[in-house]
């Protein structure tokens, strides 16, 4: 199970401080899931988290330090996800494993079959069950395929854990080799590829698999590091307002990259490569909390929030005279907007109330044809009058404004751009103004370095942050001089706007 490297360093140097830091973090709900995903969280801390009203139970049940009584109680939990998570816990004893092998739920058995500590008896029991399930589903699928004219394929998803297990007995491996080796599991890998990844597989079996078109190389693990996905617990400490400074200082000493953005810490040594830490900076929003709020002091910066089921949600700003490219795509991080992971946050308020001018803008690029299928005359009327208003051929009456607002909110609850209000006081302690000039220069240099490395889309994120730095009213002339050396049209535009 992955661990938080910064917490590990503190634990190694000062175990007492580590426990105090964990106890302090546990008090904050936003940190609980990531603490439960940190592989070295002690049993007591997990028990404390369990007392919460809505604890991250799946994570706790999979944790190697999950209290034994909690595991025992969840062997027969009415929630199959709890039993599935229990089946993945590395510290089950054989009687607990045997109990789960008799579970009625297929997913519980599949999770159990992936364990490296199964007895031969349990493997055989799970294989017999998997064979039965496979036969039944394949038969069912064949009759459907016959009716629909599709090609019938063998269903083999239940075998993948057993196929991967080095302890699987020889006769079962031989039986598995006779199944459809090209049948795909949920993650897209085939039964043949899964067998190939079994370290106990004989050379002659590998040769047979190769002849059958299975790639000889072991598949790259597609497992996601859930700890990184959730955010390190130590990173959560930097996100929590007023988190005790002694812990923040300890994390800074352990080399946490967010220390660079904390105004109450000295510059010190920072091991910071912008491109290495970009994902953390973005996901934790520390960099946005530092660079965005004071843009409102410019007076002409407007923030927007796009809500779209197709493109995903995004938060971004507009400054007159500056062209920031936007290419919103669901699941993609876009460099001129904050799009991942989009959750409610204290420092941003979305203004959902639209005024008539906003609604006119919503209609602006659409045609009658696009709306005709709604079969509602009101929407066509609203479309027509808003086009006429936006081309200045008419003026809305008060009744007209109300009509347009009501039609707009009925039809545009998706793909809508709302105004957003940034609350700088809620973004604290992060603030460009509050940082020392020494730190501001260090951050600017780090981002410039990241930009100059020109890696993937990372340099475009760097460009965005350099644009922000150029636009911020409190950026000094010394930093402007650094930015003038950057080879970017957008950064130059931002500098021109700041120093006309």
């Amino acid at each position, binding site marked *: 199970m992955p661990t938080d490297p910064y917490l590990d360093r503190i634990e190694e140097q000062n175990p007492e401080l580590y426990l105090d830091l964990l106890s302090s973090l546990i008090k904050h709900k936003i940190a609980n899931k990531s603490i439960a995903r940190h592989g070295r969280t002690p049993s007591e801390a997990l028990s404390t988290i369990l007392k919460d009203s809505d604890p991250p139970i799946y994570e706790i049940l999979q944790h190697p330090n999950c209290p034994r009584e909690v595991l025992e109680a969840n062997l027969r939990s009415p929630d199959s996800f709890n039993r599935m998570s229990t089946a993945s816990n590395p510290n089950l004893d054989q009687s607990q494993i045997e109990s789960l092998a008799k579970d009625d739920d297929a997913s519980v058995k599949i999770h159990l079959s992936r364990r490296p500590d199964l007895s031969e008896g349990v493997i055989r029991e799970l294989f017999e069950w998997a064979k039965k399930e496979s036969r039944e589903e394949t038969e069912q699928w064949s009759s459907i395929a016959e009716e629909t004219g599709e090609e019938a394929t063998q269903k083999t998803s239940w075998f993948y854990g057993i196929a991967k297990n080095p302890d699987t007995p020889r006769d079962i491996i031989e039986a598995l080799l006779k199944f459809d080796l090209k049948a795909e599991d949920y993650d897209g890998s085939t039964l043949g590829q899964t067998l190939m990844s079994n370290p106990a597989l004989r050379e002659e079996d590998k040769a047979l698999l190769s002849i059958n078109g299975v790639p000889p190389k072991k598949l790259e693990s597609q497992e996601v590091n859930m700890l990184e996905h959730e955010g390190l617990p130590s990173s959560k400490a930097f996100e929590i307002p007023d988190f005790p400074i002694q812990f923040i200082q300890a994390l800074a000493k352990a080399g946490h990259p967010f220390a660079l953005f904390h105004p109450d810490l000295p510059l010190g040594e920072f091991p910071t490569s912008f491109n290495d830490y970009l994902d953390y900076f973005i996901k934790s929003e520390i960099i946005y909390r530092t660079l965005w709020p004071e843009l409102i002091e410019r007076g002409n910066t407007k923030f927007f929030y796009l809500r779209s089921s197709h493109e995903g949600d995004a938060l971004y700003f507009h400054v007159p005279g500056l062209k920031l490219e936007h290419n919103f795509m669901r699941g993609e991080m876009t460099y001129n907007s904050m799009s991942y992971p989009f959750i409610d946050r204290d420092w941003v308020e979305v203004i959902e109330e639209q005024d008539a001018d906003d609604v006119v803008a919503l209609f602006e690029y659409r045609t*009658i044809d696009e709306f005709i299928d709604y079969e509602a005359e009101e929407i066509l*009327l609203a479309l027509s009058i808003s086009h006429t208003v936006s081309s200045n*051929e*008419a*003026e*809305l*009456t008060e009744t*007209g404004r109300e009509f347009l607002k009501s039609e707009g909110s009925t039809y545009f609850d998706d793909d809508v751009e709302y105004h957003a209000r940034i609350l700088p006081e809620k973004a604290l302690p992060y603030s460009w103004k509050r940082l020392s000039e020494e730190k501001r220069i260090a951050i600017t240099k780090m981002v410039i370095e990241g930009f100059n490395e020109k890696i993937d889309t990372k340099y475009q994120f760097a460009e965005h942050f350099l644009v922000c730095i150029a636009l911020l009213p409190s950026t000094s002339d010394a930093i402007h001089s650094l930015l003038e050396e950057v080879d970017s049209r957008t950064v130059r535009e931002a500098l021109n706007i700041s120093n006309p």
Partner: protein
Amino acid sequence: MSADSKTFNPPTAEFQAICARVDGYLTSITASEEFIDLSSDNEELLQLAFVARGIFRELIVPSKELVDAITGAEGELKNLAEEFGESESEEDSDEDFEEEDEED
């Protein structure tokens, strides 16, 4: 900016009458089964008709250009309404005819 903040000449009674008539034409056009198919060919004209409906319902105060455009398009909209209406009634009469045949 609301209508109250600018001085507009209120639409004349004559223009109100035009809008009322256009509103009627629009009703027959949108009621027609052909409406969805033919709307893209007449998009601009239909838009004007909807604007006239907006004026008739006192949702917008038109500019002089808009008054001229709607006044100028009234004849065309009337023709369009008749066209839509005719195709509708032709279909109806066909159906009636078929029904009569069946009865025979």
